[in-house]
């Protein structure tokens, strides 16, 4: 689709906005609607748009297979290791209260824990979606 000038210009304008919105959704999950799952999909859709408008080879130079396939398990690991970290700090598995301290320690710890696991969820979801899309794009 390299010849479609309007598509190229508009998607170049849109992609940063989509990514920014993905990051907003990622960080904002504990205050409003959103979270890792939605953010991951939104973030991945920016890459899918890029791959559709430019070709897969160009997209793979931005985010190659090597990085992508590393990110897939890293997300799950971040989630699981957050649980292990809470075990080490003396709580139960995935008990986030232990991450905080002081007067509002419980809420503070929960915010840290939820941010960490949502980050893991977001990484895995985004990279799996892009992986599946790349796998399809390569078959053509």
């Amino acid at each position, binding site marked *: 689709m390299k010849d479609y000038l309007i598509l190229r210009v508009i998607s170049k304008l849109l992609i940063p906005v989509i990514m920014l919105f993905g990051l907003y*959704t990622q960080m904002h*999950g*504990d*205050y*409003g*609607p*959103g*979270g890792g*799952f*939605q953010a991951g*999909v*939104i973030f*991945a*859709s920016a890459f*899918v748009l890029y791959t*559709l408008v430019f070709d897969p080879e160009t997209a793979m130079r931005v985010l190659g*297979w*090597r990085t992508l*396939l590393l990110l*897939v*398990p890293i*997300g*799950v690991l971040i*989630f*699981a290791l957050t*649980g292990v970290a809470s075990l080490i700090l003396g709580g139960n*598995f*995935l008990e*986030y209260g232990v991450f905080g301290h002081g007067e*509002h320690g*419980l*809420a*503070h710890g*929960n*915010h840290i*824990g*939820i941010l960490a*696991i*949502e980050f*893991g*969820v977001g990484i*895995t*979801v985004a*990279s*799996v*979606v892009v*992986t*599946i*899309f*790349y*796998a*399809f*794009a*390569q*078959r*053509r």
Partner: protein
Amino acid sequence: MAPYLDIVLLSLLVVMAIAILRMRNLVAVVMFSSLYSLVMAGLWVRLDAVDVAFTEAAVGAGITTVLLLAALVLIGTREKKPIHNPWLPLLVVTITGAALIHGTVDTPLFGDINAPAQQHVAPYYLERTPHDTGVPNVVTAVLASYRGYDTLGEVTVIFTAGIGVLLLIGRLPRWRRRKRP
């Protein structure tokens, strides 16, 4: 105003479902199912399930459409004429549909305070979330704090699905370092 909006959205869903059934061009079918998801997302907002609406719009209307279109590139865009007799499937669908409609007769009304869904664990979560976690969005608190194990399981499912698709249709890259020009 609000009931009319529901009626419009629900009738749109029915119209689109029938259109999807009748069409033979699979690209149009994919587009209509994407629209179906979008209208469904609107209905979730009407039901105050914004988190679900968000997911429906992003996954159902967005990524699923792209993946289905990518699959169509591989398998072609015309649906083949069905070779089997339509009567048995029609009978099964009719009986199932009748059973489901019969089931809705006893369903509690939307927002009914005495509904089992409002009586069981929901009050516990609504009461305890500010004290237990200090997280304003109860949905996230349930998802990440109370049911953290489940969410870890879900992420593992997504991880496994990604690996599965890659093994089935992906051409894995060779792990050799390419020479830079």
